[in-house]
């Protein structure tokens, strides 16, 4: 694949990737775009490792999730929710953050649960594809989805959403 072909390929995928990362970063545009840029550069330099077993978008999202985890610190996120993390680590720059109902609703979820719901409901990926992106077993993804659904239902019922 040439440079031009790669650029043409990522043109359509950059928007869903940035939307996913924006959701993961709680609407922090600067951080999300920074991670998205790193993802696209990594994908460009590692394109020779893409074997075509999964779709290109799944492969790209997998790199994106990896970059997000590197950026935030995977160990912290896997054991505690964003709310706990934010309470523990003082936020140094909230300037780019945009709070909306979605961020508030998924706030209590862990990063992998959050990634699961964003990929499943917004980006329309199947549980098998999500498993590839997050690098976990399908059964774990289904369990994340189950827990996230229960959490979201509770939030929506409290808010009177239908």
């Amino acid at each position, binding site marked *: 694949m040439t*440079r031009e072909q*790669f*650029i043409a390929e*990522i*043109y359509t995928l*950059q*928007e869903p990737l*940035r*939307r996913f990362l*924006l*959701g993961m970063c709680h*609407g922090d*545009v600067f951080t999300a*775009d*920074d991670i*998205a*840029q*790193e993802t*696209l*550069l*990594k994908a*460009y*330099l*590692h*394109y*020779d490792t893409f074997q075509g077993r999964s779709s290109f978008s799944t492969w790209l999202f997998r790199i994106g999730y990896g970059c997000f985890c590197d950026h935030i610190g995977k160990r912290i996120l896997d054991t505690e929710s964003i709310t706990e993390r934010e309470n523990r680590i003082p936020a140094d720059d909230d300037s780019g953050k945009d709070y*909306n*109902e*979605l961020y508030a*609703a998924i706030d209590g979820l862990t990063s992998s649960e959050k990634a699961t*719901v*964003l990929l499943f*409901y*917004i980006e329309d990926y199947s549980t098998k594809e999500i498993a590839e992106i997050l690098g976990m077993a399908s059964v774990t993804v289904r369990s994340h989805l189950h827990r996230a*659904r229960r959490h*979201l*239902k509770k939030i*929506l*019922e409290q808010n009177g*959403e*239908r």
Partner: protein
Amino acid sequence: MVKDKDIKQFMLRHQPEVKNSGPFMKDVVRQINAMPIPAAMNQERQKEDCIRLVLEVSRRDLRAVRMAVGVIVVVAILSAITISMIPSDLIPSFPPYLFQFK
């Protein structure tokens, strides 16, 4: 009772809004063009260093642009305050015939 369909609708209604796709892609294309050909790098370390360098330059440029915009805004505000403080007597008034267009 909230159903799965309601969750999907809620998620889609409040999905993060992606803006500035044009400038973002312009930046990415510039960064990719600054990269060497992937085949020229066979070590993982080289690739990581290359990405780090390109992103560092890009972030530095972005910081410089933001700083320049900030300076322009501050200068504009200070100019407006300074002009508003000049006594009106010192500002030459326009002769009334200038406003009498027929």
